[in-house]
């Protein structure tokens, strides 16, 4: 097991490097640059700016310097769009925000999703099943860019219960709407996956044996069925967790949370090269990490899996 983890971490390094190279190539292939504006800058001004950010260097040198700075100083460079900030500043400010609402969304999605899925499976083909399936399909088809304005309309304008946006250091009433908007579609997916895998497990031999032994249903579900039924959910949770804690453009844009989700889109539009790279590397590294954690959790849940 230990050597497996080491092996995976070693492989992560070239994976990240390839990610960096591909992103660099795509980035510079896009027309325009960070300092493209309606009024073309005078040449002297453009030269000064390009020199300041090292953009006058050949591409290979830029990439080499970039990687060197990350490895040696953990420095992701200055933002091109926000002159007073570095990429480290941008991430340090925005990541805790998305981590907070992403984590709570994750908790809500799992608790509600798994409960709905289990309930639907146990009461298969009853009104409860139909209701649970109905809710999860409804939540799945309602995209969060539709959900967000509806939440805003209901809770801020009509009821006046919640502030319409902002973060305020993560005060609870500012976190509610982002969490609802972000968690619903994940919750729906988790409910559907749980339901179908639970149904499959409940029809398997060892559950029949447990029932034959006369064990109470609650014990069968919790002790015997839930764990194997969670395997397909688990492989979904790794990438889903990364997606949640790195935020969502819609949530950030609608609720002005200040998270890093919006930079996925904005930094690309602004050709803010260093921010694009910083976010890409962050998400890439987190994805690698959580996929590894999921694989480890697999081995823990299913004794048949050994590395």
């Amino acid at each position: 097991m230990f050597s497996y983890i080491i092996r995976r971490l070693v492989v992560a390094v070239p994976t990240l490097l390839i990610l960096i190279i591909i992103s660099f190539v795509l980035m510079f292939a896009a027309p325009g640059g960070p300092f493209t504006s309606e009024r073309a800058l005078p040449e002297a001004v453009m030269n000064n700016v390009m020199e300041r950010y090292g953009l006058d260097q050949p591409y290979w040198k830029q990439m080499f310097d970039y990687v060197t700075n990350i490895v040696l100083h953990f420095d992701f460079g200055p933002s091109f769009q926000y002159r007073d900030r570095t990429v480290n500043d941008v991430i340090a400010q925005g990541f805790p925000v998305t981590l907070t609402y992403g984590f709570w969304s994750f908790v809500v999605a799992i608790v509600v999703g798994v409960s709905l899925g289990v309930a639907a499976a146990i009461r298969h083909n009853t009104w409860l099943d139909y209701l649970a399936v109905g809710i999860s399909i409804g939540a799945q088809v309602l995209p969060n860019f539709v959900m967000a304005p509806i939440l805003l309309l209901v809770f801020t304008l009509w009821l006046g219960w919640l502030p319409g946006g902002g973060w305020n250091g993560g005060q609870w009433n500012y976190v509610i709407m982002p969490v609802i908007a972000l968690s619903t579609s994940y919750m729906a997916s988790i409910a559907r996956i749980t339901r179908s895998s639970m149904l499959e497990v409940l029809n398997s031999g060892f559950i029949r044996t447990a029932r034959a032994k006369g064990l109470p249903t609650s014990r069968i579900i919790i002790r015997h069925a839930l764990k194997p039924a969670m395997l397909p959910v688990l492989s979904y949770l790794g990438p889903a967790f990364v997606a949640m804690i790195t935020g969502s453009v819609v949530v950030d844009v609608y609720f002005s949370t200040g998270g890093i989700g919006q930079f996925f889109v904005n930094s690309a539009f602004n050709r803010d090269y260093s921010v694009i790279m910083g976010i890409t590397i962050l998400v890439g590294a987190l994805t690698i990490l959580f996929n590894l954690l999921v694989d480890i959790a697999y081995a823990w849940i299913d004794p048949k899996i050994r590395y």
Partner: protein
Amino acid sequence: MTIKTTLMAGTATALIALAGQAMADAHAVHPVTGQALASEQVFTYRVLDDFPSIDPQLIQDVSGSEVARDLFEGLMNEDAEGNVIPGVATGFEVSDDGLVYTFTLRDTAKWSNGDPVTAGDFVYGIRRAANPETASEYAWFLEVAGILNASAVTAGEMPLEELGVRAIDDLTLEITIDAPRPYFPQTSTFPTLFPAHQATIEAFGDNWTDPENIVSNGAYTLSEYTPQEKLVRVRNPMYWNNDATIIEEVTALIINDENAALTRYLAGELNMTDIPAGQYPRLKEEYPDQAISFPNSCSYYYMFNMSDSGPEALADARVRQALSLAVDRDIIVENVLAGGQRAAYTFTHWAIPGWEVPDIPMATMTQAERNAMAVELLAEAGYGTDNPLTLEIVYNTSDSHAAIAVAVSQMWKQTLGVEATLANQEWATFLDTRGEQNYEVARGGWCADYAEPSTYLDLFTTTSSYNDGKYSNAEVDALMQEAKLASDPLPLYQRVEEIAAADAAIIPVYHYASVRMMSENLENWPTENLLQNWYSRDLYISASE
């Protein structure tokens, strides 16, 4: 002075001081309008995006400039109508040749840490903008202002000391410009030319604008800045005219989505926000006192690619003329935009002070007459059913640009049988496409840098780097050159517009308007200030009856 008058003067001074104290009081009234003031003087408004910078010498966007005008103060300010009025300088003198401006600074102006504001601070600030090491993208504005040697200094070809700005003494600043520019004093209201506190900048480097470090000289100081969320500024007790400030706290909330912003405005979280395109008529009906529209100094136009890479047809003025005539501006302004914008037949914004729109034949025709003329001209140029003209319209991705492009292509098709295809491109790609003349017809928008027609008309000159259509007319170039030195350039500017209209250099479509929701009790908003250079210290919140 007798004892009695001394006493009276003393009492008056005490009363004025008291009035200042009483501003926050519920019973206070505005000293000029006499309106009762609300007990809470807090102004909250929405901005679209986070501020790329709030460092005056680096700022290049409108919302950053709004913050800078509150936090800092330049030599001159603008009043509600856009006239230049004293700021840190009490006034200025111009040399006979119009090249040397001597500003006298007030001795009461202080930085927020108590240091006096000196001429040296302005020299430092302006040099800082030009300094290649600062690498300010807005260094070009010093060239617009015409400060002597600005481009050479920015290019690193001359030392900073050669820049046309020097301190004669602590309270006297001399600025030399390269040619007479009547609009020069107005450029001093722009953040690029603001003073800077050298000790603070040298101590904190790039972090000098953080709330805990910043030293500023305006009516407000920065109290809080959470990137992507909000920026808060509070009254600056060290400001020389602090007694006249009424608003205690100003908050800019960064809300990307304009519909979300509108909902939050309606929920009472904001005093001011923009109205999303197309919603003005509905909101005006529901909230007649809050939905407002006033001119905004930008013009919307379509440009033709007249360079060698452009289509042959567009080199023919008759074709361009026909395409321009066939665009029914009234439909675009009234049905597509519906926010108080004005149809445009010339480029310069109609509301520029002192500007008189020349008589352009097209402007007074009916649309039916225009269409008839357009058909004729296009046929003359050799295009028709047997030889149809096909064009591509490029615009940057946005709902309203798309709506206008659809309308224009329909008008061209119905009136002229022109087959226009539409292509939308993401902003940076679009600018590249346009800048490299890699298009046929493209959307353009231009906003005034200063309130004078040349800010628009310079785009018609052959050498302008913003002339993406590559329009070129020797007479226009000569007229614009002549206008620089003319005592009354208006007729020259009018002639340029006439020539550009006759050549159909561009298709002017409409003149912008600011379309906003504004709380009924937010008072003194300078709707007459065309460049929308507003200062929070001029605003106040009236008590609701």
